[in-house]
C-alpha cells in the first residue's frame, strides 16, 4: 500500500546533477545568490532581459521618493535561474522514488520530514544569534532549499541504515 505520489527514480540522479554543481558554485562564491558573477567564468556574460517585477530593489522608491510597484526592469536573470534550478533540483531529489518504495519507506519518509523540520528550525534558531545584518540574507536564501536538502540527507541515511541492517539469510 503506497498512497504517496512520487517522481520516477531517475529524477533523483537528475536532481543531484543539477544541485551539486550549484551548491559548489554557492560554496565558492555565495554572492551569486544575489546576482554575483559565477566563480568559474572569466568571460561572464549576464543574461539581461527587461522583466516585470513587483518591487524594485531600490527599496520601492524612485528618485521622487514614490513607491514603485509592478515595474519593468532590465535585470540579469542568472541568479534567478540558479535559484529556480536549485529549487527544482532539490524537489527532484527529495520526492523521487527509492529503489524499494513501499509502505515502510513511506513511514521513513514521514519520519525524515518531521526530523528535517526540527533540524532546520534548530539551525535557523542558532544562526539567528550568530549571523547579523546583511549577512542574514544569506541565511534566508539558504533556508529556501535547506529544508528539502536536510530531509533528503536524513531519508537517505535512514534507508541506508535499514539496508545495512539486513542480515544474510541461510
Amino acid at each position, binding site marked *: 500500500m503506497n498512497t504517496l505520489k512520487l517522481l520516477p527514480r531517475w529524477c533523483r540522479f537528475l536532481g543531484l546533477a543539477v544541485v551539486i554543481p550549484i551548491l559548489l558554485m554557492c560554496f565558492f562564491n555565495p554572492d551569486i545568490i544575489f546576482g554575483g558573477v559565477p566563480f568559474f567564468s572569466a568571460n561572464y556574460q549576464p543574461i539581461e532581459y527587461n522583466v516585470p517585477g513587483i518591487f524594485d530593489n531600490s527599496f520601492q522608491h524612485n528618485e521622487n521618493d514614490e513607491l514603485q510597484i509592478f515595474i519593468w526592469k532590465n535585470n540579469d536573470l542568472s541568479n534567478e535561474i540558479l535559484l529556480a534550478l536549485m529549487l527544482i533540483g532539490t524537489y527532484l531529489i527529495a520526492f523521487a522514488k527509492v529503489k*524499494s518504495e*513501499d*509502505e*515502510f519507506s513511506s513511514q521513513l519518509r514521514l519520519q525524515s520530514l518531521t526530523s528535517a523540520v526540527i533540524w532546520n528550525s534548530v539551525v535557523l534558531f542558532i544562526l539567528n544569534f550568530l549571523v547579523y545584518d546583511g549577512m542574514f540574507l544569506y541565511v534566508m536564501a539558504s533556508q529556501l532549499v535547506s529544508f528539502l536538502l536536510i530531509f533528503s540527507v536524513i531519508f537517505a541515511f535512514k534507508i541506508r541504515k*535499514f539496508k545495512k541492517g539486513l542480515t544474510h*539469510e541461510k
Partner: protein
Amino acid sequence: MKNSIKVERARNNITQAKLAEMTQVSRQTINAIELGKYVPSALLALRLAKIFDVAVEEIFQLEEGEV
C-alpha cells in the same frame, strides 16, 4: 506489538525475500516488521495472515500496556 512472522516463515519454509515478493513489499520491510521496528498496515497484516493461512491475531499480538 510483537509478532511471530519469523516463526511462521520457518514453519512454512519461506525466506524473507520470498515473503517480500509474495506481499509486494521490500525485504527491508519484512525485516523491520520481524525486528519490531515497523508496525505494518492492516492491508499488509491481512496479506501476511492469508499467506500463512492463520488469523491476524495469531501473527500479531498486543504487548502488556498496549491495550
